[in-house]
């Protein structure tokens, strides 16, 4: 078989050993000059994954950089009461098809998980890969109510907005959305404003940035004087982002660097942003761990309320009895606690018996730590 692609498109260049070593050395040189270890938050769960999977975390530590996980896991930051409302709905009403992304079904709540729920006759919980697929189901099952329950950041929101627009245009009456849509910049601002976590800079999520662009983070550099860099997801991409942050610290010149220019344009994806603005409006959303944050969530605008599942089914989206499991996911999401420092980690909490969403989602810091560090306890 001929080689599939020239080196430009293959990923090997972004994973090559020599490149990684060179980047780590360049980072060490900077931290040596700064003469103290730096703490950098990787906002996005997929970056956490890259750091663990490629074994970069300990190497970075040697190079003088401690990486701290952030809130970038939509499944993790969605409060339990969303799941509980869906569980209540499918157990109390007939002929509801509740669709959602796979990892959402395993989140443990005070009422069990969607996976362990036994729905009413004619109702079911179905895993879909895209919101569009849920809309198709609604077309195929006019006798049922199809609801799409999705959580997502700016990366996923355009897909959900597109589906909402299409649903409105097709006039299907049996399709609704329960969308837990979260915005990254307001969450970062909440973290910075709280002053709880001590960090020297951010690695911004690459694919959120594909949508929102570079400007969206300028307040971090301007108001909080904190460095940051947008980074891609290959090992060399993440290291390039870290090198940029470390250089900004050394120079004392914070900015929003874009180290993922092959995918991220300064202005983001204008079409996606326009679609979001057409269908959705900001509101004060509640995040697990971070609490209520102004303008940090998006919901359907009033003219699209027909598609709103919370309204159609009168869902109660309010904190109920909390699950007394001792899960400290909220602190993990703020970068205040490392998974291994949770007393339940690898003891009562593991991927087969997760006690919280951070052990469920593939972007969850606890699951990633468990998978790639084989549950090793930190000294």
């Amino acid at each position: 078989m001929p080689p599939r692609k020239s080196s430009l498109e293959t990923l090997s260049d972004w994973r090559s050993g020599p490149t990684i070593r060179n980047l780590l050395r360049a980072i060490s040189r900077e931290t040596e000059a700064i003469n103290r270890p730096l703490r950098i938050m990787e906002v996005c769960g997929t970056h956490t994954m890259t750091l663990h999977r490629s074994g970069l975390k300990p190497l970075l530590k040697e190079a003088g950089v401690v990486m701290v996980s952030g809130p970038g896991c939509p499944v993790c930051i969605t409060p339990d009461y969303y799941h509980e409302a869906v569980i209540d709905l499918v157990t109390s009403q007939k002929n509801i098809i509740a669709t959602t992304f796979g990892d959402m079904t395993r989140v443990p709540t005070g009422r069990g998980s969607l996976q362990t729920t036994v729905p009413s006759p004619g109702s079911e919980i179905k895993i879909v890969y895209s919101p569009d697929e849920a809309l198709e189901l609604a077309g195929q099952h006019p006798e049922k109510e199809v609801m799409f329950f999705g959580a997502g950041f700016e990366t996923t929101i355009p897909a959900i907005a597109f589906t909402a627009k299409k649903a409105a245009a097709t006039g299907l009456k049996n399709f609704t959305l329960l969308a837990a849509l979260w915005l990254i910049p307001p969450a970062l601002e909440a973290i910075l404003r709280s002053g709880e976590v001590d960090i020297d800079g951010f690695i911004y999520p690459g694919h959120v940035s594909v949508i929102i662009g570079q400007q969206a983070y300028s307040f971090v550099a301007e108001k909080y004087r904190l460095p940051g860099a947008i980074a891609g997801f290959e090992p060399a991409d993440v290291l390039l982002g870290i090198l940029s942050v470390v250089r900004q610290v050394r120079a004392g010149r914070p900015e929003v660097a874009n180290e993922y220019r092959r995918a991220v344009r300064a202005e983001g994806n204008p079409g996606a942003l326009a679609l979001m603005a057409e269908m959705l409006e900001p509101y004060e959303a509640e995040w697990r761990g971070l609490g209520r944050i102004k303008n940090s969530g998006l919901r359907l605008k009033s003219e699209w309320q027909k598609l709103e599942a919370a309204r159609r089914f009168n869902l109660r989206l309010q904190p109920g009895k909390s699950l007394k499991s001792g899960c400290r996911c909220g602190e993990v999401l703020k970068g205040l606690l490392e998974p291994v420092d949770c007393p339940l980690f690898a003891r009562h909490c593991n991927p087969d018996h997760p006690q919280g969403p951070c052990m469920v989602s593939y972007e969850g810091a606890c699951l990633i730590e468990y998978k790639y560090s084989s549950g090793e306890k930190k000294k």
Partner: protein
Amino acid sequence: MCLAVPGKVVSLQDDGTGQVDYMGTTVLANFSLLPGVKVGDWVIVHAGFAISRLDRAEARRTLRLFQELEKLNSAD
């Protein structure tokens, strides 16, 4: 749900969807958020939607930067 790796567009249909190849596995993607996409483009797909097209010139620039780092380090 989030495929962090890029795929290559192998076909386009009139309804705004098309096939994206990931090292031999093809998936259906919606191209409505990426006007002007062409067969042969490398794209990032998320939740069934293509959200970005990779810029080859920028990719090449980053790879050159890696080569410069190599020179810098071997000069130490």
